């Protein structure tokens, strides 16, 4: 279906990434947000607080990130599309509710404008060091989806994608920005509403008596249909391991079945969840795997290397989780090496190394607070290609 | 003749004794019999005194007993306003 024009600020704008993310959420139909102030993410909800009374919806500033990250889920079960926004320390506090959203299959979006950590770290400076936390931060086994934009335009575009994927798979989606992208101001083109595709909620239309909240339809989809509170279904939702009725089920079999399905509904959709940008990877000796702000720095390094005659390709991950194992595996059949620059001490590079099956993988680490120097990435490419 | 009576779901009872203790007309006592979990459920020892006040039902934490006035069908006191 198409976007509701009410939230779509069609036109050409000059926006920073945080504001563009907010506009993406509004265009996607988000009508509820809860947040707690934290640099460098606050501008997203500040804009939402200003815009939403004129669009139709609610923003509430909660008492902390624990509250924000569960208030949005209450709103979702009440019928809204909802999201919350934070940065590292707040993201840490939200971990339990990422697990709750996974377990209860609550579609919602968590925006994390990453800054340097651990702990309070570098509030106003960038990092990409929450990438593994986005994947594994909550306890238990699970799969989520995470996206990484590298420009304000993508902050708009991919926020819509984030909402759409959360609705399609009924899973919390991590929108992993970074301080640079969040605070960078560029041209953002917002198309007319009729050009924006929106994934509708997977609502049930079953009769009240026939509805089981966690039963798959039998149509092959592993994603159950959803009811909202107040519709007469009188359903139960719990963070405990549950059966198809949503009732607690404390057995090995129930655990295996539920956790298995929660994994499979994402892992078996790997093809649908492949969103990358590839340049010159087909004949590359070295493939630079990159994401977020680092991809823009890496571009300089790649261009310099190609100017020197090196066969270097670029693989930019827009969806980082689930990780594109098969694509990396395919590229590894030809490439001699992968180079992975990232604003952390080695997170996604380990995934590349795992998927590359023995092909040399070079991490170009950076502890955060700034971005890489292009010459350092060039140097890593040169060394890797030897 | 008794104005009311009680109904007991013996298997739900955990013999806390609330219904026996707080019955205003002392209709109930714990039975010497056991249910399958080994609890002594209540039984009526003074049925003629039951007023059907349902205080036992209000107290019972296990939803195992309730009282009602004779001739009245409790479930048909329409509880549910479906819109």
């Amino acid at each position: 279906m198409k976007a509701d024009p009410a939230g779509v600020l069609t036109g050409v704008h000059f926006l920073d990434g945080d504001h563009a993310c907010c506009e993406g959420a509004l265009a996607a139909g988000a009508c509820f947000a809860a947040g707690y102030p934290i640099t460098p993410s606050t501008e997203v909800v500040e804009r939402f607080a200003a815009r939403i009374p004129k669009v139709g919806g609610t923003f509430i500033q909660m008492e902390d990130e624990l509250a924000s990250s569960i208030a949005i889920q209450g709103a979702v079960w009440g019928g809204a599309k909802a999201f919350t926004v934070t940065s590292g320390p707040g993201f840490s506090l939200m971990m339990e509710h990422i697990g709750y959203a996974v377990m209860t299959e609550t579609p919602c979006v968590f925006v994390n404008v990453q800054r340097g950590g651990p702990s309070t770290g570098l509030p106003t400076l960038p990092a990409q060091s929450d990438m593994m936390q986005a994947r594994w931060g909550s306890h238990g086994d699970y799969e989520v989806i995470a996206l990484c934009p590298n420009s304000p335009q993508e902050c708009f575009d991919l926020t819509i994608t984030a909402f759409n994927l959360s609705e399609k798979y009924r899973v919390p989606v991590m929108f992993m920005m970074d301080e640079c992208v969040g605070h960078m101001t560029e041209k953002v083109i917002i198309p007319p509403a009729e050009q924006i595709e929106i994934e509708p909620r997977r609502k049930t239309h079953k009769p009240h008596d026939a509805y089981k909240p966690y039963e798959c339809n039998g149509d092959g989809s592993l994603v159950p249909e959803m009811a909202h509170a107040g519709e007469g279904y009188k359903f139960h939702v719990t963070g405990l391991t549950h059966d198809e009725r949503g009732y607690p089920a404390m057995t090995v079999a129930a655990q295996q079945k539920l956790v298995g399905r929660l994994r499979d509904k994402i892992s078996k959709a790997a093809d649908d969840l492949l969103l990358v940008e590839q340049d010159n990877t087909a004949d590359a000796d070295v493939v630079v795997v990159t994401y977020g702000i680092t991809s823009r720095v890496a571009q300089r390094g790649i261009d310099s290397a190609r100017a020197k005659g090196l066969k270097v390709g670029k693989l930019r991950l827009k969806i980082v989780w689930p990780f594109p194992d098969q694509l990396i595996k395919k590229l590894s059949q030809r490439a001699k090496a992968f180079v992975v620059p990232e604003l952390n001490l080695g997170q996604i590079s380990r995934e590349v190394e795992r998927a590359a099956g023995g092909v040399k993988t070079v991490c170009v680490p950076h502890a955060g607070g700034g971005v890489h120097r292009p010459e350092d990435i060039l140097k890593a490419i040169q060394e890797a290609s030897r | 003749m008794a104005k009311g009576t009680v109904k007991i779901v013996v298997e739900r009872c955990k013999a806390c004794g609330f219904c026996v203790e707080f019955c205003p007309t002392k209709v109930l006592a714990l039975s010497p019999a056991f249910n399958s979990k080994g609890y002594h459920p209540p039984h009526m020892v003074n049925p003629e005194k039951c007023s059907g006040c349902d205080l036992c039902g209000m107290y019972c934490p296990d939803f195992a007993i309730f009282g009602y006035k004779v001739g009245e069908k409790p479930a048909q006191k329409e509880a549910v306003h479906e819109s």
Partner: protein
Amino acid sequence: MSEVDFECAECTNPVEPFLRSERMPHIWCPGCGIGTTVNCFTRALIDSKANLEKLVVVSGIGCTGRVAGYLKLDSFHTTHGRAIPFATGLKLANPKLTVVVYAGDGDLSAIGGNHLIHAARRNIDLKVICVNNLIYGMTGGQTAPTTPEHATTSTNPYGTFEPGFNLPHLVDAAGAVYVARWTTFHVRQVARSMQEAFKKKGFSFIEIISPCPTLYQRRNKMGDGLDAMKYYKQASKVKNGAPTGEVGLTKTGEIAVGKFVDRDRPDYRELMVHRFHESLGDEYVETGELVCS
């Protein structure tokens, strides 16, 4: 005559239509008072003729947290301490819902304490039912913020020495519009307070002192559930309108019960709508239910 009625199939317990009967028996211990509060709750629903399709129960974690799962209503068993913020989002997204938060003392006042005071401050239209058994039951009898001084718990084996919370005082100070306390002995009063809270717009808080025979009474040599009930009957004193600062609990002393607070002030939504109308005029798009596309 009564024989016939006794056997009649239609004669069902008034609580029964509200229960997910296939989940019975419940997990609560013999003599636990939580089930008694559920009786009161369902009687209040019947007597207030509540629209059950629009009534939602939100629980946290713990023994009382299990209430949501036993009620045949839209019900959410959330994370520990977070029933109130979940309910806040739910109520704001769909103001037509009556949202009841049904949780224990530890859930609401320890791990969820911050949410409790802020929801009261904002005057979110929630009906909070706090079953206070003075201890952590589900995890084995640890000290709660409500445990009276000198009571023995598994984490204060030599007696508690930290002062406990006086919950009515706390939520009164934070701004709740309706505050009452009863015990599980006061079944009719509990049901009446619940009905009053259903009618009240804003943050209502009903504390129900309830036995935990397995962990609180036993460890403190205070007998079983029935002994606790007898103590409630003997020690309770109705003090409607009492200053909440004077209703703190002790281990064996008087239990002040009654309706302490009943006042009116605009709830969060009213304040929000009023502000936006004032500031934005025609630009404000007032919404009822937030329905996602």
